[in-house]
Structures are given as structure tokens and as C-alpha cells.
């Protein structure tokens, strides 16, 4: 093992140790309140994790950072409001419709704006996804106005209590969905031919197309998957967060930091990154003025990029010379 590899391994275990130490210290210092903080942190963290997974899916296959990923979740939540609250449809139907519409939109955008420009510079693609984000926010404001909207929790609001800490039932739905999503995404990318081909297409497009997976197909599938995943996440999150036309930006930024922390391109990484970020943020808010809590996400982002850009669970990227 080269010295750089062993340094990286030490960094990885070192950061795990630091996070564990912080969590344990909080539990000791604050007792049952510490447990509450951890639980709240995990709830917030799984929301980040869901958005982070969307980033990962697109990045791992196309090396594109989709600044509009948060917007998919926002649209999912708003559409759910329209279907289940305004149109009084049963929630399961509302979920399916919301996800279907956003997925179709994501796929359509990929074909119209991303695929034709895949050879252009990094920064051109970044601007396009930023344009998409602005467009989605503006359309949401046009259709639904500016007020936050309420969507009923799936199984009610009565808090669940144990060991002095509490959790709302919707949090369990979020945890459950996160687990389901990461299992499905991981299985897709590591066990199916299409998924494996898509990952290959990012590193070696020619070899991948020999196996029948062109980078064009890869990009389309990735965007479709990310849009659908984002929309579903938005539906599950909405009862906790209150869907609002402006929700896309905040979700996007935090989810993005979580994705980098966990490793862009790794679905389990996204989950780990999200959960760690959520917990660290919540703990910070209880010790420092909470305005600094947002700084945690960005400090971690920069630290990770400088020291270990592939994040906790990602693989180092080779740069073409």
C-alpha cells in the first residue's frame, strides 16, 4: 500500500472516530436530551440523504452536478399537495401521479437540454442546471403561490416516545423510505447489467457502448431515476417540512454537501453523508448560536474537498491528462 493510500485509510477511520466521539460526548453531556438531538439529527439527516442520493445517481453516471436536484423534491411535494389535498385523491394515488409527472419532466429535460450539450464545458452544464432550478422555482410560485402548504402525515401526528426522547411517525416513514431507496439504488448499480454499464460509461464510454450502454442512454436513465427518486423523497418529506415553492434551493445545498461528504457516486455514501451531516448540524445548534449550524455543512464540504475529495465512501477519481 502506498503512503497516500494508507494516509487516506487513516483519514477515513480518523473521521469516523471523530464523529463517534462527538456523538458519545453529546450523549454523556446532555443525557436524554442528547438522545433527542441524535434522533432529530437522524430525521433531518435522512432528508438530506434522500436528496444526496439524487445527486449521486446523476454524478456517478454523467459527472454532472445537477443544481436542480432539490427542485425535483420540491415539485414532488407541491404536486402531492395538489393531488391529495386540493383534489382529494387517496394518498397512494397522489404519490404515484406526483412521481410520474416529475420523472417525465426530468427525462424530458435531459433529452432537450442535457444530452445535446454533453460535450460542452463543465461550467456550461452547471449554468443549464442552474437555469432549470430557477425555472422550476418560478413555475412553482406561479402555480401554487408563495405560502407554505400542509400535507397530512401518512399515519398521523401523535409522537412516539421512548427513553425520554420523541419522534413523529412521519420520521419513521422517511427512515424507511431512505432504507428502501438505498437498497434499490445500490442493487441497480451493482447487480444489474444496465446499472453496471452506466457506471462504466462514466469512466470509459467506449467500452460501455460495446456492452450496449451508450453514454446517451446512461444519461437519460440517470436523470429519470434521479427525478423520480427526488420526487418521491419530496412527497415523504413534505408532511414534516411544509412544501413551499422555495424549498428546492435549501434542500439542494444541504443534500449536495451530504453527497460530497459521503462520496459523490455512492448511494450508501449519500446516506452516510446525510445522516452524519444531520446529526452534526443538530448537535452544533445545541451548543452554538444556531446561525452557525448552516456553516457546518459548508465547512465539512470544503474540508472534504481539500483533504479527501472522494468523500467517505467514494472512489478516487482519475483526472484525464
Amino acid at each position, binding site marked *: 500500500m502506498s503512503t497516500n493510500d494508507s494516509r487516506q485509510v487513516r483519514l477515513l477511520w480518523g473521521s469516523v472516530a471523530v464523529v463517534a466521539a462527538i456523538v458519545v460526548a453529546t450523549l454523556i453531556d446532555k443525557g436524554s436530551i442528547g438522545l433527542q438531538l441524535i434522533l432529530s439529527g437522524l430525521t433531518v439527516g435522512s432528508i438530506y440523504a434522500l436528496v444526496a442520493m439524487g445527486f449521486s445517481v446523476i454524478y456517478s453516471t454523467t*459527472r454532472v*452536478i445537477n443544481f436542480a436536484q432539490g427542485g425535483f423534491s420540491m415539485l414532488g411535494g407541491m404536486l402531492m399537495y395538489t393531488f391529495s389535498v386540493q383534489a382529494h385523491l387517496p394518498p397512494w394515488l397522489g404519490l404515484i401521479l406526483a412521481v410520474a409527472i416529475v420523472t417525465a419532466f426530468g427525462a424530458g429535460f435531459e433529452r432537450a*437540454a442535457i444530452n*445535446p*450539450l454533453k460535450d*460542452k*464545458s*463543465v*461550467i*456550461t452544464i*452547471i*449554468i*443549464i442546471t*442552474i*437555469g*432549470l*432550478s*430557477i*425555472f*422550476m*422555482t*418560478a*413555475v412553482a*410560485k*406561479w402555480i401554487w403561490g408563495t405560502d407554505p402548504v400542509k400535507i397530512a402525515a401518512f399515519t398521523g401526528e401523535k409522537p412516539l416516545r421512548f427513553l425520554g426522547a420523541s419522534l413523529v411517525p412521519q420520521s419513521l416513514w422517511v427512515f424507511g423510505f431512505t432504507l428502501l431507496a438505498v437498497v434499490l439504488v445500490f442493487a441497480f448499480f451493482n447487480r444489474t447489467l444496465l446499472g453496471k454499464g452506466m457506471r462504466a460509461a462514466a469512466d470509459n464510454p467506449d467500452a460501455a457502448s460495446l456492452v450496449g450502454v451508450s453514454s446517451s442512454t446512461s444519461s437519460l436513465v440517470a436523470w429519470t431515476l434521479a427525478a423520480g427518486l427526488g420526487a418521491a423523497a419530496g412527497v415523504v418529506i413534505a408532511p414534516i417540512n411544509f412544501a413551499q415553492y422555495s424549498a428546492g*434551493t435549501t434542500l439542494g*445545498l444541504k443534500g*449536495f*454537501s451530504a453527497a*460530497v461528504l459521503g462520496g459523490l457516486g455512492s448511494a450508501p455514501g449519500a446516506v452516510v453523508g446525510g445522516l452524519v451531516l444531520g446529526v452534526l448540524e443538530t448537535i452544533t445548534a445545541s451548543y452554538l*448560536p444556531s*446561525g*452557525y449550524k*448552516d*456553516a457546518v455543512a*459548508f*465547512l465539512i*464540504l*470544503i474540508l472534504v*474537498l*481539500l483533504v479527501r*475529495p472522494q468523500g467517505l465512501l467514494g472512489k478516487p477519481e482519475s*483526472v484525464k*491528462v
Partner: protein
Amino acid sequence: MEGQLTRQSETNWRTYRTLIIVAVFVFLVPVWARFIPGDVLHMDIVNIMVLAGVYACAVIGLNLLVGYGGQISLGHAAFFGVGAYTTAILCTRLHWFPSWLGIIAGAALAGVVGWLVGKPVLRLKGNYLAMATLGLGEIAFILFQQVKGLTGGTVGILDIPPLSVFGLKFDTDFKLFFVVWALVMVLMLLSINLVYSRVGRALRALHSSEVAADAMGVNTSRYKVQVFVLSAVFAGLGGALFAHFQKYINPESFTLALSILFITMVVVGGMGNIWGGLVGVVILTFLPSVIQALPQWIPGLPSGLSNFSNYELVLYGLLLIGFMIFLPKGVAYGLARAGGFTEMRARHLRDRIKARKIESH
């Protein structure tokens, strides 16, 4: 232009000549803006141009960084903000502090910050650099909000005095217009000189292939940091001018949205083209006002649309996407091609006339 060999000095001369033409055109703006009645134009051109001018300072620097240095920054609003807060704090806390000195201080401090963060961060490339600069910009925003004793927190700093240089007060938009755009022209001059100098050539080598440039003995990291610091200084200058223009600042003026606006101006205007920054600034600063004025210029628009605040942002997002799809090299490139094309045709015409003259002898 294809197939045309021109001497380097001829290209330089042409660029300086364009700069003079642009400067003349710009300074005539307030003159002819006076003569178009307000209810035809529906926008205050001089006011918008001052804002465009202060943004231009930042965007010209960013254009050098992105287009020539090949780097990305999604956090440049932070430098803009450092410049603004520096002069605002100095001029409101120390009532004797002259505003022109505040502007210099703002630009200098922005440069220092740029150097401090640039050195570690510029080791990153591409997407990673974009992400890191984004994070830095957000941290700066949080600091502007949280360090209340210094920055006034979320309430901000009020009653910033107008710009005054040795007794001359620039307190109206009209007067400020000339100062700001004179500075913009100076910055453009500096940029042109930089691009044509040895440093500029090193930057272009770096842009096309950092590894090759390294192999050739170009000290890539030093040049990268230098151009980053320069762009930070320009942005700080713009921010300080902004503070004396608006006379009130709060952290909301320096968010990620502004960083994104800057980078969008560079890309829409045209990276790698010396005029890209200026073109992008003017287009994107006027775009919202133009969209807003549309219902009044085109009377037939349906009522759902004429409440512009609904559709303005929708249109803006679509236009951004559209620009990237149809003009990915930027508007300046398109203009240069059109200009070059026309000039080439004119030249051909002249050559043919000359040839015919020779023949008829």
C-alpha cells in the same frame, strides 16, 4: 478569423480601438437616455447602468479567472461583499473616513481574502473547485449574518455616505455613472494588457492544458493564485462602489444568487473573449427590466402574463437554458463572428475593387 494571419500588434491595436469605441458609446448613454420619454422606455437606464457598472467590475475579473485562467468560482459574491462591508464599516464608524479610501481598502481586503482562500482551494479542479468556492461563498454569507457587532447582522448597515473624491460628491445616479464606468474602462484596459502580456500567455497555456504548461516550466499554481487574487480585487472594488451607490447593505445582497448571476454573466457573455464579461453584464442586468417592460410595449399580452412577477423568473430561467443551448460560446463570440464575418466580406470587396483597378490599368 479563419485563414487570416495578423500580426500580434495589429490584433492588439484593434482591441484598444474597440475599447475606445465602446467607451465613447457608453458615455453617450446618459445623453440619449434623457431624450426618450419615461412612459415609452419604462426603465431608468442610468440607474440600471450604474448597477451594471458595479457588477461589471466583478464580472471582468471573473471572466479573466474563468475564461483565461480556466478556473471556476461560484462564490465571488463573497469578495463583492467583503469590499462593500469594508468601506461601509469604515465610513459609518469613522465619520471622517473618506469614501474613496474606503473603496481602495475594500478592494485590497478582498484581495487579501482571495489570497488566503485561493492558495489551498486552487489545488482543486473542475467540479471540485466549483463546489469548494460555493461552500466558501456560503460561509462568507453566514459570517456577514452572524458577526453582528461588525456587520450589523441581518439588519445590515444604513446611511452609507455617497462617494466623494476630494470634495466632489457623487450623490446622484448621473454623476456616479461616469465614475463607475470610467473605472470599468480602466479595468478593461488592465485586462487587455494582462491578456496580451507574458502572464496572459502563461494563463492561456494553463487553460488549455495544465499538465503541459507545468511541463514547460510555467509556475501554474502561482499564476492561478495571482489571477484569482486579481479577480477578487476587482470584485471587491465593485462591491465597495455598490455600497456607496445603494447606501444600504445587508447580507441578502451577497448571496449565492449573486455569485451565480456573476458566473452566468461570464458564460452568457462569452468565456475566453475579452469582451465577454461586459456583454454578459449588460445583457443580464437589463434583461429583467426588459421583460418587465414587455407588457407595456406589447399591449396584447393576456392578463395572467402581465403580472410580470409571475412570469419574469420563468422567462429568465428559460432564457438561461436557451442561451446555453444555442449560444454555448456566449454572445460575444456570436457578435465577434458576425463582426468578423462582416469585416471579412468588406475586406474581400475592397480587394476585388483593388484587383479590378489594377487590371484596368
